């Protein structure tokens, strides 16, 4: 494009082309947040399950708070690699809405986790249900069926935490996160790379 005058027809074509380009845009590695949080949760959940079942020491449950730490480290590593090449940045209304959805669900998940230290509550069920809701909402907003379906699947699987009792419910939790975040994260990444 140059600094040249346009005819009225060219102006209209340019406006629609620019708006269309942005609407159809899908960033590379769009599934990275799902993969980072998904893998971190699965790794920590399996570690907690293994340590608690082998040692019978419930202090290993404190490891759950390692999920945000592990995710943060993974995020820093991903960003450090990303900065090596020229990366365009654009933020749409949809990006802002999704950011706010996860902020609200993330804060509520964190508050419930803190309360679970003091009061007895089905914490795995609550976290799985809320994260499933956030995933389903994200999928519906971005109109990407695999993410929306896996979110609803996560919500349904949260009920299994009542069926499978005791420490083994952690395995249900880890399995649900693989279905709800890891698999759709990879699908999302592959789809954004193909576009």
């Amino acid at each position, binding site marked *: *494009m140059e600094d040249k005058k346009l005819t009225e027809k060219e102006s209209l074509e340019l406006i629609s082309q620019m708006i269309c380009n942005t609407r159809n845009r899908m960033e590379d590695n769009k599934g990275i947040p799902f993969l980072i949080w998904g893998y971190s949760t699965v790794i920590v959940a399996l570690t907690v399950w293994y340590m608690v079942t082998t040692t019978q020491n419930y202090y290993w449950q404190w490891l759950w708070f390692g999920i945000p730490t592990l995710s943060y480290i993974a995020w820093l590593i991903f960003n450090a690699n990303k900065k090596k090449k020229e990366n365009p940045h654009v933020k749409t209304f949809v990006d802002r809405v999704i950011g706010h959805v996860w902020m609200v669900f993330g804060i509520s998940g964190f508050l419930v986790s803190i309360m679970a230290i003091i009061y007895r509550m089905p914490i795995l069920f609550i976290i799985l249900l809320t994260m499933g809701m956030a995933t389903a909402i994200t999928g519906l907003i971005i109109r990407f069926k695999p993410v929306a379906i896996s979110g609803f699947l996560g919500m349904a699987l949260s009920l299994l935490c009542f069926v499978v009792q005791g420490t083994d419910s952690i395995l249900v939790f880890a399995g649900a996160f693989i279905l709800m975040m890891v698999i759709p994260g990879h699908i999302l990444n592959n789809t954004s790379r193909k576009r």
Partner: protein
Amino acid sequence: MFKELNPLLHSELRLGIISLLISVEEADFVYIRQQTGATAGNLSIQIDKLNNAGYVEVTKSFKGKMPCTTCRITPAGIDAFEEYVDALKSYIVK
């Protein structure tokens, strides 16, 4: 009766920038350059003109050690764009 088209927006690159920013919350210089295919120098001049007119807000920051220029359309820019589109409509043959 034909309405007068805003001369600031009636240029290919400036209209491209505004049309792009109208549909996003914010975009950086690299993204705008990729989408418009303009040279960095020319793009910088046109963004400055839009910034001076109060149509675009420019924020300069750093991503690590790399400078980063982020642009977002202002309410005045949205009004100007809407007026421009309204004026364009008067040129469409009924």
